[in-house]
């Protein structure tokens, strides 16, 4: 599956099928700081992601001042 990441913006290829939770672990990302978006739907931690999916992992934490 194609996974789009930010900061810096890049796309990586990950082998599916895979639970969203495990994708976070594999990429060493904290759940509380990100959303997983598939199309225009949010994906929960327990959902399965498949090879044909286009996934965006969007960071939600901003630095401010």
């Amino acid at each position, binding site marked *: 599956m194609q996974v789009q990441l*930010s900061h810096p913006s890049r796309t990586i290829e990950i082998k599916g099928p895979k639970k969203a939770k495990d994708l976070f672990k594999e990429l060493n990302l*904290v759940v*509380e*700081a990100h*959303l997983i978006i598939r199309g225009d*739907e949010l994906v*929960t931690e327990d959902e399965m992601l498949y090879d044909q999916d286009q996934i965006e992992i969007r960071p939600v*934490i901003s630095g*401010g*001042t």
Partner: protein
Amino acid sequence: MIDLPRHNAAFCKGCFNVYVHDQVSRAIKSERMFGKDDRILVAVSGGKDSLALWDILLKMGYKADALYVNLGIGGYSDVSHAKVVKFSETVASPHGAVLHVHTVEQEAGAGIKELAMLIHRPTCSTCGTIKRYQFNRVALEHKYDVMATGHNLDDEAARLLGNVLRWQEEYLDKQSPSLPASLDGFAKKVKPLFRLSERELAAYSVLNRIDYIVEECPMAKGARTLLYKEVLNRLETESPGTKQAFYCGFLDKQRKPEVSPTTMAEKDQAMLHPCSVCQQPTTAEVCSYCKMMARAKTHSV
């Protein structure tokens, strides 16, 4: 669907919106922020929090207009400005709401970066001064009752952590999500999103198709804030509810009058008396040490 570990639940879009509005309504009531007749000015940046705030207040039936300050930071300002205008036209206008815009370049003749260089100040502190000033000016000129900002639970918990780590007690008083109008004519300042986490607000924006700017202001190098947020989110992942307990617990404590150390000592003394077995002070008839030893003896036989 979105899962909210701190509430041990997953919500569909409809129920999640109810949850979000409910949290905002609790914040508004508990901190007495404003009523349905008050005119509110929301500071919007084009980011998720401020646009979500404007959206929520309008959908809850409040009279909320907004102010956007264009800082003149190249592409970032162009994109964020466009997102704010689009939201204003498609969502806010139908509710009868108005968008005010202040463009730094128009008045100062230069963008925020050049301006900061001219006066030898860091960009973000120059920016802060300008945004505060314009927010106040527009609120006074147009007679708004309250100024609202999109600060969320993560912002407030991170700021509290920073202040507590250095025991900057003088700042703690200013961390209330509702600051009264000051004598010199500044309007009241409120933070209606303080009960919602950053992740919840991003989810609200995605679920409600609010088109916000995901990238950050290129000047944002709040390394310290980010570090505090990261630490808090690690704790949150291990034990959901930590951020809320930390910040909302602080607010609860501030509301209650402090128990002075003397009365605490007096209270202790009033409750203590000698253990009937060993004479050491205890609040019970027999102290917990003697109870434990008594039990050990009965079991060893």
